[in-house]
């Protein structure tokens, strides 16, 4: 049993530096390394969308419920899990509304000195490109 509050929400977080991203844990099917990716799949680099460097050998990938079959989100090397109080998740400031909508930013929360942008998986998945596993 988890001792977290029922009002907490769990996220898989990634990205480097003061701004990263967060995927709702409830929508994560599994997190895998590059050698566990299927031979053909669709991939979207969240790390690159958030300014992190290109893929590295230890990069992790998340398979998500609402993203479609064999669609994976690249998390980068620094993937981790955070439990966040529901009331700590803010709306993206309204003056950023158009950008937030375009890039599927569903919310934002503080993670120590950094911010994490909660990503709307279903909205972002259509941007994933077909790839062969490397």
């Amino acid at each position: 049993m988890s001792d977290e509050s029922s009002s907490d929400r769990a996220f898989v977080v990634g990205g480097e530096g003061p701004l990263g991203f967060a995927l709702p844990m409830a929508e994560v099917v599994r997190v895998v390394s590059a050698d566990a990716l299927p031979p053909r799949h669709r991939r979207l680099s969240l790390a690159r969308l958030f300014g992190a460097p290109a893929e590295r050998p230890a990069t992790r990938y998340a398979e998500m419920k609402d993203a479609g079959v064999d669609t994976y989100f690249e998390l980068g090397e620094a993937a981790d899990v955070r439990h966040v109080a529901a009331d700590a998740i803010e709306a993206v400031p309204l003056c950023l509304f158009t950008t937030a909508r375009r890039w599927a930013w569903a919310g934002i929360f503080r993670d120590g000195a950094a911010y994490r942008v909660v990503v709307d998986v279903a909205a972002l998945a259509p941007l994933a490109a077909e790839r062969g596993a490397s």
Partner: protein
Amino acid sequence: MSAPVTTASAGPREETHSLFAVRLGDDLLLLPVDEVLAVLPSEAPTPLPRVPPHVLGLVNHDHRALAVFDLAAFLERASARAEAGARPRTVVVKAGSLTVGVPVTAALGVVSVRASEVKPVSGAFGPRVGGFLRGECETRHGVGGWLDVAALLEAARV
């Protein structure tokens, strides 16, 4: 609007406006006081990806994420951050539903301007700024441009 006040002098009553004066690079700009929520020490914002250059990022203000816009860059004027020896501040402005932090070269404080002292826009601030001015006023800090904050934030939102 700018919190109009009717003067209590013995002569004919004249409406005055309370405006908050800031220096933005070389420009003196005047903001309606009721659209200024706070003046903060400047801090480096957390940059955001996929935004235009005038969006500097986020800072934590009052336990909320506050977007910081470089209005000097948006208005194509000298940067508020470029002036050495100044005391830069971030002014939190709110107009309608939009709240934004704006780095300024200096926050000078409140000035009162009589309605008769508000002149039409002369073009001295350039065409880009002029489009967001309600008028120009002589103040103790010099000639300032009275900003239409709501129009400016609406144009700068992304």
